[in-house]
């Protein structure tokens, strides 16, 4: 591989990922707006401040150890199987700062090609998704601690195992999850459920469970938020496709590859994304008889449902999978809600958890026999491998860390806000101060006005 080619690819990647970082920011912003739209007025300022603090907490924890977990756990087949080049991802490594020698390692070109800040943004997105299900009753400090557990530890290890070129899940089981329907969405759904069980529904001891459709407080905000999430989703798709050199007999070619280094096309994956969105929104509309939450949520569940195989599906296959999975998601959501009295404010368990889970299972049958990786020694895609990956991401990396983490917080009595505050509203103090400040301000204005009037009289 010539230096010129390498130089062009390095430049191409730098431009590509620099622009995508900006576009991917739409996702956490959209998720924040979505949560605010689902919050009641008495909790809205608290929801905003608590969720804003997720960002700095994720940034610092991901720098300190999140990136190291991805780089360190991507080799297998054991839990680690060696640390590979993870030394460069340690927070004290010279390569974590501006370094003119920080060229991609040709032996591990794919994983060194995706910069850490893309993974950081994905981590912020991951925790922003999960936290939506717990709003209005979880403490801000619990939100931050659980987010670190999810976003800087467990999702990155799952990604290292199943969403990297050399992950052992890919190698041994043929796990294929091109756009992270499992390692992000299925996992997030499991984690959200793990926290929801100890946390309980809103207004503590009530027997009547909230239905998400009854708790939309600002339809404009959730619509704007969800549309921004769609933009972030599209940007994430681009970020998960890597411009790379492939050497063929006829020479070197620069092409687009998926996270495993296998060729794909941006044209095809983008078409699949749009068809999945269309199928999900249409099915959401029909099932809910035009309800806003399920039109938007159906679109998102549709996107999630095809993410495992959207590098290979035909757009119409993506459309059909999307409508089928959204139907499953809708039914499963209502069954779980009724049966287990689970109050999932933004529908994370259903949309992301079930959407990702069912999407993985279906992809195992449809893509059965495809190579999971360009490495021909790796297992082919198969239903058992996909099902195993779905169970692993949902339960081992999602549910159990969420459940244990929230139980520990519950033990120290820092998981849930006091009942009086939940009923009276977390914004009571802020609103009271705001009212007092307005009264003070009006007092100052009146004094100034009086002064002006007297001056004019004189």
């Amino acid at each position: 591989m010539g230096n010129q080619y390498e130089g062009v690819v390095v430049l191409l990647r730098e431009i590509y990922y620099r622009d995508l970082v900006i576009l991917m920011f739409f996702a956490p912003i959209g998720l924040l707006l979505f949560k605010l739209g689902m919050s009641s007025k008495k909790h809205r300022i608290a929801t905003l401040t608590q969720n804003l603090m997720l960002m700095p907490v994720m940034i610092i924890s991901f720098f300190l150890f999140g990136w190291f977990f991805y780089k360190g756990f991507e080799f297998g087949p054991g839990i680690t199987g060696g640390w590979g080049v993870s030394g460069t991802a340690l927070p004290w490594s010279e390569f974590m700062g501006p370094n003119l020698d920080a060229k991609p390692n040709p032996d591990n070109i794919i994983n060194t090609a995706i910069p850490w800040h893309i993974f950081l943004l994905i981590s912020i997105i991951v925790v922003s998704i999960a936290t939506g299900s717990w709003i209005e009753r979880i403490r801000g400090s619990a939100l931050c601690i659980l987010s670190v557990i999810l976003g800087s530890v467990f999702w990155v290890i799952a990604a290292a195992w199943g969403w990297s070129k050399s992950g052992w899940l890919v190698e041994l089981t043929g796990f294929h999850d091109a756009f992270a329907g499992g390692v992000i969405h299925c996992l997030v759904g499991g984690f959200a459920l793990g926290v929801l069980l100890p946390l309980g529904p809103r207004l503590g001891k009530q027997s009547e469970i909230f239905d998400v459709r009854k708790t939309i407080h600002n339809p404009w905000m959730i619509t704007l938020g969800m549309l921004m999430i769609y933009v972030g989703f599209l940007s994430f798709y681009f970020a998960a496709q890597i411009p790379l050199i492939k050497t063929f007999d006829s020479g070197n070619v620069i092409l687009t590859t998926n996270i495993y280094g296998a060729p794909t096309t941006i044209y095809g994956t983008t078409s699949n994304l749009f068809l999945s969105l269309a199928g999900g929104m249409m099915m959401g509309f029909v099932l809910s008889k035009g309800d806003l939450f399920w039109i938007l949520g159906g679109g998102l569940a549709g996107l999630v449902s095809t993410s495992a195989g959207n590098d290979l599906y035909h757009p119409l296959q993506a459309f059909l999978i999307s409508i089928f999975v959204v139907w499953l998601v809708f039914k499963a959501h209502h069954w779980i809600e009724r049966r287990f009295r689970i109050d999932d404010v933004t529908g994370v368990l259903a949309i992301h958890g079930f959407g990702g889970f069912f999407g993985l299972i279906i992809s195992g049958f449809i893509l059965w026999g495809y190579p999971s990786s360009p490495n021909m020694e790796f297992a082919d895609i198969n239903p058992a491998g996909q099902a195993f990956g779905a169970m692993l991401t949902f339960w081992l990396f999602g549910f159990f860390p969420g459940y244990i983490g929230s139980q520990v917080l519950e033990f120290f009595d820092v998981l849930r806000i006091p009942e009086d505050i939940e009923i009276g509203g977390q914004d009571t103090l802020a609103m009271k101060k705001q009212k007092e400040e307005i009264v003070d301000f009006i007092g100052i204005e009146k004094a100034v006005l009086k002064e002006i009037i007297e001056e004019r009289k004189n």
Partner: protein
Amino acid sequence: MGPFDNWLKDLADIGPIYPLVGSEGIWVAVVALFWIWWHMAQIRIESQLDREQIEAIGELEDLYETFSEDS
């Protein structure tokens, strides 16, 4: 302070361009301690705000009378 004295070298020979190369471990320790302290401070601040919040909310019976449908 700087790890190099001119830009006219092979860039790979220059390597890291930030000041105080070699002392990264100390910064990591300081930042990690600050990060842990911040979480503890957040819990403490929240508990204090909760007490003030409960005081501001007052009796739940009074709240019941004025409960807004919009909330």
